[in-house]
C-alpha cells in the first residue's frame, strides 16, 4: 500500500516537472521575442527630460512603454521621444527627443560647431532639460542604427498615465533654408 502511494507521488512529481520544463521552453522564447520586437518597459532615470519626464525628480521615476515594432524600419518623426543605445556606452540606453532628421540644419546649443547639417542615416537628439542632458550637443549626430524604441505611453505613476505625442520644443527644430536667407 505504501509503495503504491510512493509510486503515485513520483509520477505526479515527474508530470509537474515535465509541465514546468515545457512551459519554460514556451514562455522564455516568447517573452524574449516580445521584448526584442514589440514592446519594452523601462524606467526613466535622471533629469535630462524634465519637465516632461520625472517632473518632481527625486525618487519618483516615470515608467514608459517603448514601442519597438514601430521603429523596425527606423522611421521616426521630429518631436518623437526615442530610446537609443548610448554611443558612449553600448551597455546603456538613453531616452531623448528627436529634433532633426537627416539633411536638416540644426543650430546647436554648445556643440563644437554652431550649425550642423545632420548627415545621411543620422539624427539629432536633445533632452528637454538644457544643461542637464548628455545628448547630440555633446556627442554630435547619432546613427539611426542605434535606435532602440519609441516612447509611446507613460504607464506609471497612474496619475501620469498619458499617450506621448510627438512635439518639438519651442525654438528647437531644423532651420528652414528659406528663413535663413531672409
Amino acid at each position, binding site marked *: 500500500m505504501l509503495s503504491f502511494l510512493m509510486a503515485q507521488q513520483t509520477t505526479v512529481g515527474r508530470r509537474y516537472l515535465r509541465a514546468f520544463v515545457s512551459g519554460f521552453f514556451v514562455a522564455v522564447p516568447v517573452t524574449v521575442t516580445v521584448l526584442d520586437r514589440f514592446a519594452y518597459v523601462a524606467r526613466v532615470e535622471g533629469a535630462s527630460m524634465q519637465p516632461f519626464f520625472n517632473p518632481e525628480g527625486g525618487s519618483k521615476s516615470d515608467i514608459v512603454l517603448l514601442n519597438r515594432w514601430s521603429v523596425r524600419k527606423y522611421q521616426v518623426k521630429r518631436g518623437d521621444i526615442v530610446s537609443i543605445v548610448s*554611443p*558612449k556606452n*553600448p551597455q546603456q540606453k538613453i531616452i531623448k527627443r528627436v529634433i532633426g532628421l537627416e539633411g536638416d540644419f540644426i543650430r546647436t546649443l554648445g556643440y563644437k560647431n554652431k550649425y550642423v547639417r545632420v548627415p545621411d*542615416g543620422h539624427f539629432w537628439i536633445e533632452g528637454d532639460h538644457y544643461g542637464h542632458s548628455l545628448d547630440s550637443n555633446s556627442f554630435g549626430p547619432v*546613427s539611426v542604427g542605434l535606435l532602440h524604441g519609441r516612447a509611446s505611453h507613460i504607464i506609471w505613476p497612474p496619475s501620469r498615465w498619458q499617450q506621448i505625442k510627438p512635439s518639438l520644443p519651442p525654438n528647437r527644430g531644423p532651420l528652414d533654408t528659406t528663413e535663413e536667407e531672409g
Partner: protein
Amino acid sequence: MVGTLNHTLVEMFRRALGQTLGFVGYTIQYGCIAHCAFEYIGEFVVCSGPSMEPTIINHDVVFSERMSRHLCKIQKGDIVIAKSPYDPNINICKRVIGLEGDKVCTSSPSDLFKAHTYVPKGHVWLEGDNLRNSTDSRNYGPIPYALIRGRVCLKLWPPHSFGTLSESPTKRITKTQSDSD
C-alpha cells in the same frame, strides 16, 4: 434529422477551430525560438563586395555569432558584421583594427607624414582587408560599438575554403604594451 446535421456541422467547425488554433500556437512558438536563435546564437550571412579580399570574397557565405557582441567581447583583429552608419538597413563586413582608447593610424602607408588618432569611448575602428578598395573608418570615422551585429567566426561556402578565417593581412593593427605576443 436537421438536429443531427446541425450537431455534425458544429462538431466539424469546433475541430477545425481547434486545429487552426493549435497550428497558430505552434507557429508562434517556433517563430519565437527562431528569433532567439538568430538574435542570440548566430546567423548566416552572404557577403558581397571586394573590400575584405583575400580573406572573404564576393558571394562567400559565413556564419556570424552573436554572443561575443552581447557580452562585449569583440577583440582587435575580429571580423565583424555591423550596420552601416549611413544606412541602418545595409550591413557591412569589416575587421576591427582598434577598440576604444586605441591609437589608430589614419594615413595610408604611402603617405610621408603619419597621422594618428585615438578611438573615442564606446566606438570601434573598422577597416577592410583590401585597403585599396574599401570604404571604412578611414572614410567615415570610428563607429559606435552598438552598431556591431556579430563576429564572423566560420566561413561556410565555397567548400574549398571552409573553416576559420585568417588573421589580418594588412598589418594595420598596432599592438599595445598589454597585448600578449
